[in-house]
């Protein structure tokens, strides 16, 4: 009987060496996987590359076609034109519904031509005037807008 080999120290050491041996390949595998932490290649991602490129091309083309600075400069001009072309209410006596309050008011005061209010008349006088003169022409202009 060889007494030196069967002692608590050897037993303790052997226990841990055995554990190392059992897990040897697990440790090597873990070491290898540290260098392979990236997700596996995905065909979805590969196909997405072309899609993102297309998206980028389109975005660039759009950006080129619609330069922001020019748009900024043009806004006041367009705004003024829009404000000027705002249609004004037009009096069409033949379109007044009979028996309606408007028709009764007209009957009561037929002298009233274009819609006016007594108080504001003096101030916006020049405005309605070109408006009434321009009415026949204006009736054409709004029509395309309205249609």
């Amino acid at each position: 009987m060889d007494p030196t080999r069967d002692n608590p120290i050897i037993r303790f050491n052997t226990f841990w060496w055995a554990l190392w041996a059992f897990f040897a390949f697990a440790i090597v595998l873990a070491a290898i996987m540290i260098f392979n932490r990236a997700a596996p290649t995905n065909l979805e991602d590969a196909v997405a590359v072309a899609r993102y490129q297309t998206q980028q091309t389109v975005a660039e083309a759009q950006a080129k076609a619609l330069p922001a600075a020019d748009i900024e400069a043009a806004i006041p001009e367009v705004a003024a034109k829009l404000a000027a072309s705002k249609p004004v209410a037009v009096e069409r006596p033949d379109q007044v519904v009979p028996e309606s309050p408007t028709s009764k008011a007209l009957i009561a005061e037929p002298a009233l031509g274009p819609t006016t209010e007594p108080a504001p008349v003096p101030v916006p006088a020049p405005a309605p005037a070109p408006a009434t003169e321009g009415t026949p022409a204006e009736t054409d202009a709004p029509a395309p807008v309205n249609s």
Partner: protein
Amino acid sequence: MSSASSATPTSDAAIRAGIDRSLRHPVMFFLTSGAAWLAVSILLAITASIKVHCPTFLDGCGFVDFGRVFPAHINTLIYGWGFQSGFGVLIWLMARMSRQECRSAGTILAAGHVWNLGVLLGTLGILCGEGSGMPWMEFPRFAWPVLLLSYIAIVVWSFIQFRVRAGERTFVAQWYLLGAMMWFPWLSITANTLLFCVPGHPVMAAGINAWFKSGLVFLFFVPSALGAAYYLAPKLTGRPIPSHTLARLGFWSLAVVAPWAGMQKLAGAPLPVFLPYVGAAATALLAVPLLIAALNLLRTIFSSEEKLPKCAPMSFTLAGLVSMLVLAATAVLFNLPGSSLWKVQFSLSGYGFDMLAVYGVFGFMMFAAVYFMVPRLTNCEWRYPRLINMHFFFSVYGIGAIVVGAMIGGYVHGSAAEAWLQPWEYVVDTLRPFAAVSTFAWCVILFANVFFFLHLALMWLRPDRLLAACKAKTEDRVAQSQQTEDPQSTTP
């Protein structure tokens, strides 16, 4: 082992008795729970097998759907019975050969219960539809760390016993058992980590699974069987192993060749082409270590003119060796790439090959070891030799039927599947009779093992009226063993 010759036969017997006493509870626990899981597995196998030729049997209920019952059968066979009977035999053999008493019986028993719990929960998981879908690894993902840790808690003590053994010589059986002890954790950690924890390519995952499956067979079950055989053959016949060199060659050829086998299951899959064909070549080459070991052991057993001892361990060892020869032959015949590989790749023969390895080779050797160990552990001889006979003969018939049904039938089935001019109904019609043979085979094996369970239970329970008979027989045996048992004769 020269130092042991100074021990007298009675002190030798005392050492052995001390070892057996220290291991009684863990080993009997593993053998009994292993036997119980074997019963469960065989019942599940019969259910699954019936469903192949009579699909309306127990139809419509998810719990017993074929796709769940079959994996439950395989996993209970491997992890419930295979590993537990392996544990029982391994820890006893390692203790006896290192001549060390077991000091960690409590830990081993606790770990054994944890193992059983893991297998139970895993099996219930499969039957409830939570299986992983990976062959031979169908337990839900929580199971494998539990099983691995309890495995280590069971076998590490045998490792320590080997290290602190007296003397420098080692037995051949110890090499195989140490190998099996180391190989399983390496296989299990690799396969389970790469399949459950690290995302990878799906086809490579299937390849690693096939490699793991083959590794379990040839790097755990077959080495455990060979360890038991290399212990029992010299022990029972009293003759030494004839060639130590051949034994070393056999062991190292297994160690070098077996890790390459497995991926032939995926021949033709979109994997690097060398993987499946190296696997096929390695599986065929495994005939070499199997034949070497069989040769060595058969020469041990038949080397002299004396009659063989007529006992259960001897019969089962011989049956295991014959199964090993058949396994070696089929390993070659089923892995010829030009002709047979593509026919049997997806046929019933894969199952037949697995069952031949797990029940034929490993199972018979485990039964041999069990019939040898239990009387020494319980101090009581096997009471009913007729039950042992029934167990033996019906097991042999059952495995024979499996060889015919699954392996030959599988070859026929595979050939039918390759006949591309025929519709699929032709293939199904071809395999149906062989599935029926398979059911018959499992029924025979169940019948065989009923006697085994009964006998084991009787050994455990030891009814009082048997004690007297046991005592008489035991006294005879001790008298005999002091004359014939001699550890010197087991070393080359």
